């Protein structure tokens, strides 16, 4: 490779990282990076060279919803599927048995189950969607008991704006009716999240405290 070709590659790589390489030139250069090891190397070198410019900016904490959206796209952290299925199926089965015993007249239909957990931790809450989404049953698992604060359950639809499903108890089971206008949210795959709120729940209509536990709603087998 001649010096001028080398300079050109290096110049293009620098402008690619800086961002001034635009339009078709940018698209073409990206294609080249994927094929040409020298181009990929030049880009990596420029990325390292200019990195202190990124580090000069004061950091800012992103809201918890960003992470919720990321995991709703790539799947929840940890928990290999087989365990999730076993746990969800067992939870659903146990629930059906419990409710069947409690209510011999009518066996509820479980349409969805979600296990909500911290990023690395035991299941904090198991949420079951019952009776054509008319009811929610939330069972507390390993979770801190709160004083003067409440856990609040949220559905996080793809639009990203959390919708409250109410305050849930840190012990035992909470059964609640799902308002008709919120039932459509309880699709398989929707992210459910629990945030820490003032006693009685958020007064703003949106989570105000940290999001502690998350999970996706799956269909029980």
């Amino acid at each position, binding site marked *: 490779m001649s010096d001028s070709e080398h300079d050109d590659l290096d110049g293009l790589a620098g402008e690619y990282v800086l961002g001034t390489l635009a339009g078709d030139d940018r698209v073409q250069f990206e294609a080249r990076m994927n094929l040409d090891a020298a181009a990929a190397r030049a880009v990596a070198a420029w*990325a390292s060279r200019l*990195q*202190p410019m990124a580090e000069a900016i004061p950091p*800012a904490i992103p809201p918890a919803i960003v*992470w919720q959206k990321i995991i709703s796209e790539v799947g929840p952290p940890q928990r290999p599927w087989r365990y999730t299925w076993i746990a969800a199926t067992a939870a659903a089965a146990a629930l059906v048995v419990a409710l069947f015993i409690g209510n011999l007249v009518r066996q509820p239909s479980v349409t969805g189950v979600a296990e909500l957990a911290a990023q690395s931790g035991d299941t904090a809450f198991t949420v079951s969607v019952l009776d054509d989404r008319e009811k929610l049953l939330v069972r507390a698992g390993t979770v801190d008991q709160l004083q003067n604060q409440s856990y609040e359950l949220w559905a996080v639809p793809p639009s990203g704006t959390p919708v409250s499903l109410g305050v849930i108890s840190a012990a035992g089971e909470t059964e609640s009716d799902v308002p008709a206008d919120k039932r459509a949210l309880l699709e398989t795959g929707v992210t459910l999240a629990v945030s820490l709120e003032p006693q009685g729940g958020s007064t703003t209509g949106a989570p105000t405290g940290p999001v502690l536990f998350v999970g996706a709603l799956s269909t029980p087998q």
Partner: protein
Amino acid sequence: MRDTDQMLIACQGGDREAFSGLYRIASPQLFGLALRILRRRDWAEEALQECFVTVWRRANDYKPDLGPAMPWITVILRNKCLDRLRREKPLQPLDDSAAAERPDESPSPFENAAANAEAKRLKGCVDELEGEQKKSIQLAYYEGLTHEELAKRMAAPLGTVKSWVRRGLQRLKKCLES
């Protein structure tokens, strides 16, 4: 090897625990940068989200022997920001609420940076650039301006601006390698 490098390598093997660790460590700096470039909180949140989804899906493209993880991720983040700017800019002028989101209004936050040896070195080299070269590179990096936008902002012909950028980068590289 840095923690972030190891976490990104673990993501290549599908380790979601490492992915969430990487997000915890890397997201504040990336979010700060996205706010700086985009000046709108909602756009910055989306850019950060898109960045990490891409990091997870394309983790295998990261080659540790070419450099650390953070510059690799920063290129992705800035690309998401630039895509957004270039998609929206003609339609939507920057609004005032955006200014409040901007952590630092000075034209060059880099002036104040001397956090580590690498930063000091780059700052020293940026300071050695001619005024127009320095300004055009900083505007491009922190505001995502294209050559055309730089020409407008700096009231100079397009060809002149292109050579400021290109020569500025060449001089930076030379200075860093000296």
